[in-house]
């Protein structure tokens, strides 16, 4: 990888240490994988938001998610920073920009001595009624993930995938559609997309999905009528049930009528992956960027240096080189390679 080299001076003070991404002049980590004194959390997924930090700064929605998932005392203190508001911190000015990944997800924009770094966390460009659309921020250093960093990954238009699901529900009124989806973000997005497509019957939830759906609703996102599978008086033929992926083929599903299992993830694009899961209806819907999304975003930031945190870095760094930019694979440990599992 001949084009993988560091620029002489750190851009906006950004560096990598044992806990992950660190900004020295501001003295804070971003999404650290071990407890630190000061952390900026991009979004509420478990691999980015861990308990035990001293002070945590995040968007108000992310803080609400953290408290629901990890408890009120998950950090020493919380500071909420709405999208777009500048904040001076040590020698740097920072602000949070929408990332479009899930409710509250943010990119961290750091300005220091005329140079700008953007740490995007996880982001996507596809439509999502439950998240503020991602904002393109031009910068010198862009830090991106590469979960779907191969040209074979292209997410299908969500409207078509939802259409596929609704067609299947219509054709199989005697079976329960059991959808495995990540409990934070993906589940709520799919429910909102089903509502937007006109599905207005109650949607049934596995117990593990209830609290976060409630939180979304409390924060003003309309998910329509939700019900708990544990309170169902029938085996729910013809209905849609959401469960965590781990419960798809669990004994729990025996309470449903000949479940037709669906799974929503960017991985479903690859047949071997979908078959390995044993799903009958793979839905290629993701909360991450697909390949075209990654490379158009990277190009549009205008950055000369691109750091790739985790995922399929090899192909993306190669592509970045072909585009005439400097790519660097950080290979950070601790971020999930698996979307939705």
């Amino acid at each position: 990888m001949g084009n993988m080299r560091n620029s002489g001076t750190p851009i906006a003070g950004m560096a990598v240490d044992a806990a992950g991404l660190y900004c020295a002049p501001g003295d804070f980590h971003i999404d650290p994988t071990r407890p630190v004194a000061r952390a900026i959390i991009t979004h509420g997924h478990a691999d980015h938001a861990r308990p035990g930090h001293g002070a945590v700064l995040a968007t108000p929605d992310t803080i609400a998610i953290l408290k629901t998932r990890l408890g009120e005392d998950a950090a020493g203190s919380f500071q909420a920073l709405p999208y777009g508001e500048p904040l001076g911190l040590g020698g740097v000015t920072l602000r949070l920009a929408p990332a479009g990944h899930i409710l509250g997800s943010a990119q961290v924009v750091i300005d220091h001595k005329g140079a700008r770094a953007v740490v995007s966390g996880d982001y996507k460009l596809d439509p999502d009624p439950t998240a503020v659309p991602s904002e393109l921020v031009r910068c010198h250093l862009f830090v991106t993930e590469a979960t779907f960093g191969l040209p074979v990954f292209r997410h299908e238009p969500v409207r078509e995938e939802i259409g596929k699901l609704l067609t299947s529900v219509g054709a199989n009124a005697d079976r329960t559609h059991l959808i495995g989806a990540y409990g934070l973000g993906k589940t709520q997005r799919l429910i909102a997309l089903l509502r937007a497509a006109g599905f207005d019957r109650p949607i049934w939830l596995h117990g593990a999905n209830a609290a976060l759906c409630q939180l979304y609703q409390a924060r003003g996102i309309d998910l329509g009528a939700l019900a708990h599978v544990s309170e169902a008086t029938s085996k729910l033929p013809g209905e849609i049930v959401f469960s965590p992926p781990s419960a798809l083929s669990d004994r729990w599903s025996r309470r449903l009528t000949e479940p037709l299992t669906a799974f929503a993830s960017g991985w479903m694009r690859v047949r071997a992956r979908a078959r390995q899961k044993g799903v009958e209806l793979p839905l290629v819907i993701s909360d991450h960027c697909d390949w075209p999304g990654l490379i158009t975003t990277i190009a549009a930031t205008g950055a000369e240096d691109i750091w790739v945190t985790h995922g399929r870095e090899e192909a993306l760094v190669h592509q970045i080189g072909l585009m005439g930019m400097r790519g660097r694979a950080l290979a950070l440990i601790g971020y999930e390679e698996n979307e939705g599992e």
Partner: protein
Amino acid sequence: MKAFANLLDRLSYSPSRNAKLRLMRDYFRHTPDPDRGWALAVLTSGLPFSFPLRRTLMDMMTRRMDPELFRLSRDYVGDTAETIALMWDAPLPARDMAGTGAASTMDPEPAGQTPPPPAAAEVAPSLRLSEVVEELALVGRNELAPRLEGWLDQLDATGRWALLKLLTGALRVGVSARLAKAAVAELADLGVDEIEEIWHALTPPYQSLFAWLEGRGPKPDVGEALVFRPLMLSHPLEAADWAALDLAQFAAEWKWDGIRVQVAAGNGAVKLFSRTGEDISSAFPDLVDKWHFDAVLDGELLVVRDGQVAPFNDLQQRLNRKRVSKREMEQFPAHVRLYDALALDGEDLRQLPLLTRRVHLDAWFSQRRPACSDLSELIGLADKAQLQQLWSQTRATGIEGIMLKRRDSGYVAGRPKGLWWKWKRAPLTLDCVLMYAQRGSGKRSSYYSDYTFGAWRTNASGAAELVPVGKAYFGFTDKELLEIDRWVRTHTIESFGPVRAVQPELVFEVAFDAVQKSTRHKSGVAMRFPRIHRIRWDKPGAEADRLETLLAMLEAPGS
């Protein structure tokens, strides 16, 4: 093309028969002619042409894609055609994509919304399956590449995948020709046999068939065509049936260990059909080329050398292939042992009683003496005790069992109750140890219901080890399934996706019809029709049977 691609896509992920039937029926109902007819052709007999694509595809890829990105993608996906289908329209790397905004002239204000990614290739509604098939029938090998490239440009990822599958001729979506015909039959609430009876008189794209099923046209005229007539099938003989059976009403025959076939001949042509109506004539020129008669006969396809029936394994060398070499015909000579006649010299005999049909068949056979065939003898028998005695010797004589047919039975298509019985030889059994359990599908998706079991052997270093000898997913009750499922969950050593390796402690008494040599299995042998006969909760795993015991059960050649 889109509807067809979606059908193949959904079929490939739907494990249950009913789900597949439903998908195909809905497709045939909502898709216009002639596309649905071509789809039916693809799902049944396949298209009359196939193209070697490897070279063509590799050439296209090197022109269109960065080799390193293709290599990384191919490694990840694991299948060349699928990789190409997925990355066909991936954006090409372009140096000028970074735009003019170098960082030094960076606008300090946010640049607003990210522009949407390049639009996915529009799926041309105009590209139809029939268009593709009709053009393929005309294009020469050299014209294929540009044509293919044009189609790939018009399709989405699923469409491209389906097109490449279509061209290579290997669908692998788990649909048999019979299942596809059953789906078609459901358009008019008919049984699949009614389709089989006219099938071989029809040609793609089957417009007359769909017209008839939708009440827009007459039943297609079979005319002089050699068609398959659905077979009369038997029921397994259970203990209660045996007790109630009045032997005086029945004729007995040996149950030969081959495959059931129907010979249809007339007007100078001969066809050999499998039990499900598949035309297998092309693989048996050593039979059909020698026959010149007008008849529809029912019999057993065997390999026979010097009047001796060879083991089933020999016959298998001749099955599931389109062509056969001279050497194979010499090494595994085909033969048909006849036991019934549906028609002779243009006269339909199906209404006549069995024994009357046999009289006609015997007379016809002694007159014509067709090559590579003989008659299945009727067993003269006095009483049940004697028959029982004969049955108990079937395994030793290499015969699969005994058939009991009512003397007065007409030839009734399907599986009528009480007319024909099959009394298979007693199964072999072996005590095996459960090694792996896999989750089932559909109703069984939350149960570990598919079992791989092994027998003990001593390895090179002298230690005892289990070697897999078979796989079974039936033979147990729902209640037993629940118990095994619970046991699997509490005795797991390791999980691989839907499969769990378990502690070598649960013994199954496995019943099977026979054991054959196999190069595809680590143990070197394969069981025929294995099923779980009993669960030996009482027996310690270490006391299960050894591989040597199974090897001793191998069928001796020529027995």
